[in-house]
């Protein structure tokens, strides 16, 4: 069965520092991978996605992620964190093809940003 692991439940970084949030997935074929952000009281917002092509994908708000098949990982990165990035971050995987549209989600990583 597919699964998504986000090993870090909570991360605290200083404003201006770099950030990497880890995501590992379990899926036999090439997955469709997503990162979403959820701010307090707000809905889930898509940061970026990968389903083929260049393994380094750029997203909104200065985020990027790299798909590494050999490590079954899709880590999210940002070179310089802003205080407004404090939120919950979710990695999700969708089966790559066919009519199965459901996303399997990780438990999330809560990001706190120190001034």
């Amino acid at each position, binding site marked *: 069965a597919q699964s998504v692991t986000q090993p870090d439940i909570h991360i605290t970084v200083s404003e201006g520092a770099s950030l990497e949030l880890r995501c590992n997935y379990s899926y036999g074929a090439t997955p469709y991978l*997503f990162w979403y952000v959820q701010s307090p009281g*707000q809905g889930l917002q*898509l940061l970026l*996605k990968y389903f083929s092509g260049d393994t380094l994908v750029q997203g909104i708000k200065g985020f990027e992620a790299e798909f590494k098949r050999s490590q079954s990982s899709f880590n999210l990165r940002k070179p310089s964190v802003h205080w407004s990035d404090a939120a919950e971050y979710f990695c999700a995987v969708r089966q790559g093809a066919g009519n199965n*549209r*459901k*996303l399997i*989600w990780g438990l999330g990583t809560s990001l706190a940003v120190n001034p």
Partner: protein
Amino acid sequence: GAGVSQTPSNKVTEKGKYVELRCDPISGHTALYWYRQSLGQGPEFLIYFQGTGAADDSGLPNDRFFAVRPEGSVSTLKIQRTERGDSAVYLCASTDRDGDVTSGYTFGSGTRLTVV
């Protein structure tokens, strides 16, 4: 509409009661999804509609849960004989036919259901 609208935003109900949660997707989006998010967890898939029909309802936890989308637009999630364990935020999302890959899901703000 401009976004996915979910009503009510909050619902408190007594154990054993029946509740309906409504989702109004983005106009023209053919695919609609329901997820449930418990505190401290990621969203959990419930059901997915393509048009009027449920393409995948494998996530519905039991027969107390049912969802409809009679005209291929608005969807209603119905929960009978509510239990305290049903307390969660119920999220709705929509996409055009293949939009979950091309542009991702657009989520509503959710309905927070509390069963007391």
